[in-house]
């Protein structure tokens, strides 16, 4: 699920729309990702020494495997409303998290004490916890093999480090954006935020892997609110710029000042929009909207830990289960439906050099020609599909989906970028609308909710347009659609091509206990779904 809890009320959801579509982006991404390691800074020697201390303490304590992460996690926020600052916040946290495997049982300890004594104490905590929980032989953890990386270095491709830009400059861009939005008739309030993340992560494990990585992410949450003068109605327009793993240049390239008036006018137009008539419609979903539907109804149900019951107590299980009944068999959608998992798309929020198991992630097809082909895996869970990989003549390897949101939380299976790949015909948004006789076009992500096995979902959006005879016939409001996942994806009958591919993203995908958030992107093309159930959410009592 995407979580509500972790952020300010003003920016409660995640961003969308208007940005020029980044192409699939392998070429330039690859160039930067695989720049010679010597061009990136090596791991700090004192950090490496502390990581080694932790691994030695774990081995001495009897661990068969251990890894240690020393990370510095920084956030920078600038909050504004209308023509004023609300707050400026810089958070900075550093510490060590040590995970040990003792008698096939995990233990984890974490501390902000970055001295030898501190990392050893965290390691002893992890060992003591593993001892207290020792598992019966049949339940013990076995890890998929991986090739060690003795000196891994990675930095998110970016031009400008957001942490090097002054508060004045950031605030100025937001305040000017707000001013433009408020020029729209009826817009009375604007909230906007700049939100930057920098994760400086150092990882080592007893297999001999040492990696040092810097991950940068940028986002500009924005909400314009239009209110009628008699207080009889109010409407908002938000989620205009998607979060991305890019530098400060990403936000300036998005040209918020230039687009803000339009966003404001869209909020005001919603006040006059026609309430939707309930019924069945063909839906044409823009990538700024469809990313969230992919996230909830494809990406989450194909997490292997979830499918095997490991998240049953909170996030839930999955209808894509058990794997023996679904892999190679389940028809998720039409034959042109291909869903890719990867951690290498440039700008993708899940993109990284190595995962938090020390594995170099690989790109893989979760759904191939409409059929379930694979699950998202970590070193712990990949061996549970050994029968499938054997049958496919593929080695049993993790896809590299391990992640922890801080040094103080234990890593586990988190989704990579999960994307709907473009179709063969190079159709765009306008082409798909033009081919549709009667329907609703939806842009931007809105309200979202799905059950714990990912069958029944309901999605709202930001902007809804009636389609008549292949043309936009006006704005609608109070629209939400309800789906049953397998029928929904099998009702997809037309998708866009490469030129219409865009990434959408969330900074706050929640999972696990204690809860952790994962930032993740989903690429998609515009797509049409036939005969979908639409409800009107404008209830009065």
């Amino acid at each position: 699920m995407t979580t509500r809890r972790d952020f300010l009320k003003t920016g409660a959801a995640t961003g969308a729309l208007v940005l020029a579509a980044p192409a699939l982006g392998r070429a330039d991404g690859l160039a930067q990702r695989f720049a010679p390691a010597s061009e990136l800074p090596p791991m700090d020697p004192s950090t490496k020494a502390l990581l080694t201390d932790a691994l030695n303490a774990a081995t001495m304590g009897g661990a068969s495997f251990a890894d240690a992460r020393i990370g510095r996690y920084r956030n920078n926020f600038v909050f504004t409303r209308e023509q004023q600052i609300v707050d400026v916040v810089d958070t900075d946290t550093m510490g060590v998290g040590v995970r040990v495997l003792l008698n096939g049982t995990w233990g984890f300890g974490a501390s902000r004490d970055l001295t030898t004594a501190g990392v050893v104490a965290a390691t002893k905590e992890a060992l003591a916890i593993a001892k207290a929980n020792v598992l019966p032989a049949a339940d013990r953890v076995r890890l998929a093999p991986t090739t060690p990386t003795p000196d891994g270095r990675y930095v998110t491709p970016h031009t400008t480090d957001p942490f090097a830009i002054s508060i004045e400059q950031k605030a100025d861009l937001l305040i000017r954006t707000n001013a433009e939005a408020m020029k729209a008739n009826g817009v009375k309030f604007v909230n906007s935020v700049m939100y930057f993340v920098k994760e400086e992560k150092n990882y080592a494990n007893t297999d001999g892997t040492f990696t040092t990585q810097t991950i940068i992410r940028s986002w500009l949450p924005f909400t314009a609110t239009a209110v009628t003068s008699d207080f009889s109605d109010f409407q908002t327009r938000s989620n205009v710029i998607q979060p991305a793993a890019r530098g400060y240049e990403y936000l300036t390239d998005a040209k918020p000042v230039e687009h803000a008036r339009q966003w404001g006018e869209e909020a005001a137009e919603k006040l006059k929009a026609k309430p939707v008539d309930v019924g069945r419609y063909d839906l044409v979903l823009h990538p700024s909207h469809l990313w969230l539907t992919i996230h909830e109804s494809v990406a989450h149900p194909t997490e292997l830990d979830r499918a095997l019951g490991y998240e049953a107590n909170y996030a839930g299980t999955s209808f894509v289960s058990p794997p023996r009944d679904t892999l190679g068999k389940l028809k998720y959608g039409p034959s042109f439906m291909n869903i890719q998992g990867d951690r290498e798309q440039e700008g993708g929020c899940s993109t990284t050099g190595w995962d938090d198991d020390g594995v170099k992630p690989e790109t893989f097809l979760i759904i191939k020609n409409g059929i379930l082909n694979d699950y998202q895996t970590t070193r712990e869970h990949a061996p549970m599909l050994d029968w499938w990989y054997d049958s496919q003549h593929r080695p049993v390897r993790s896809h590299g989906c391990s992640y922890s949101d801080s040094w103080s939380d234990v890593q586990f299976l988190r989704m990579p970028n999960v994307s709907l790949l473009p179709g063969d015909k190079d159709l765009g948004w306008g082409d798909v609308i033009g081919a549709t006789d009667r329907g609703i076009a939806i842009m931007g992500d809105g309200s979202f909710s799905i059950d714990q096995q990912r069958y029944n979902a309901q999605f709202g959006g930001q902007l809804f347009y009636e389609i008549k005879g292949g043309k936009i016939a006006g704005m609608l409001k109070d629209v939400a659609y309800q789906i049953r996942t397998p029928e929904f994806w099998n009702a997809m009958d037309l998708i866009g091509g490469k030129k219409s591919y865009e990434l959408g993203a969330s900074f706050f995908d929640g999972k696990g206990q204690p809860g952790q958030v994962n930032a993740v992107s989903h690429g998609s093309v515009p797509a049409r779904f036939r005969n979908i159930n639409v409800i009107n959410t404008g209830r009065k009592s």
Partner: protein
Amino acid sequence: MSAPKSLFGKGSEISSNEVMARAEAQAFLERVVKLSKADSISASLDGGYTGNIRFAANRISTAGGVATSELIVKSGYGPKHAIVTTGDFSDAGIERAVRQSEAIAKLAPDDPDSMPLLPPQKYADVTAHFDSTANLTAAERAAAAHTALDAAKTAGDLTAAGFIVAANTYNALATKTGLFAYHSATSVNYQLTVRTNDGTGSGWAGADHPDWKQIDFEAVSDTAVEKARASRKPVAVEPGRYTVILEPQATGDLVQLLAYELDARTADEGRSAFSKQGGGTKIGDKIVDSRVTLFSDPADPQLLGQPWNDEGLPLGREVWIENGVLKQLEYTRFWAQKKNARANGGGLRSVKLAGGDATTAQMISSTPRGILVTRLWYLRQVDPRTVLYTGLTRDGTFLIENGKVTKAVKNLRFNESPLFLLNNAELIGRSERVAGNESGGNTVFPALKVKDFDFTSLSDAV
């Protein structure tokens, strides 16, 4: 407040250094405040030790112990301010945080809503620290997990997944004006899902209390097992409006969300469910059934919350809805000054819906046809104008016919507002502390029987 006997957890390798006692926190924060060169500074501490254990698929999956503290420094120059946090408590680390917050504050544009620091305040005495929790060991957490694991394994037809988390935490605040506030608390949260191995049944139960001794692990297991078995092979019912009996968790899942909507400023600005058509707010209007009273109170023995907010404003009993009438909205200090109201903001994470005396058995026996709901899941706002939310039932949904629970039904999606719900209340049960909040916080809610609850579609999820 009286100091707890022991703040120092004895159960772990790393817990002992991380929970500062009152005097230690005060000395530390005074040191931070003295470093300030700005017009104003407030410095706060937030930290502690948290131990947890997870289990799933009838085995322990992960477990950990985390010790951490954070220093939060807010510096101000007139209407300019900025916040910097750090976990580096060395002299150099503290100095760096103070200087950085000053440097950023100087560069920040003005915040015309900023308020001067509060003078020293008096706070309610809330004892929320329990040694039973603070001194917990990994072995004790494992033994507790085994109450559920062993029950499920022994049964043979059940699979258990659960999470136990116990924390020993503290918060403190000091300002340049001499204000000091301190609160220490322990917490335990336990949630358990038991699923039947045929994949058709799922039951949930939970418990939450600051005192480890108050958590009845066996009772939680018994309830989850019973619900899992009873919920097997659910039948479909037609979506539509039903009389619904919400167990306390389900009531809390939906009604707790009202706390996010009680902001006075947005109501005054015409963009809230509590804005009044034509202008103004709905304060003084009857908005729900006259038996409904919603309040927050850190000293309430069922809530035990922190008795001050992040500015050091004392938090006491605040009644939001009394006998169905909206009594007040939540005012920040700035908005209170602007509107000539009393500042009362920051306490809504501890919230209680006053209970009645109906038992769940009475609710069921008085219902010709209805649905009994264990809990709700994935609640998301659909329309802020009416506080309309969507979400689904989960882990134990049952049909009531002629005053009896007759069968398990498939889960259902609803589109419903806590305001509509509280208007349609028929019976109100005793309030209890609930454990399964998607949004966290200390919350106390009763079971409710309500009419016309709007289910809009069926779900195949178990």
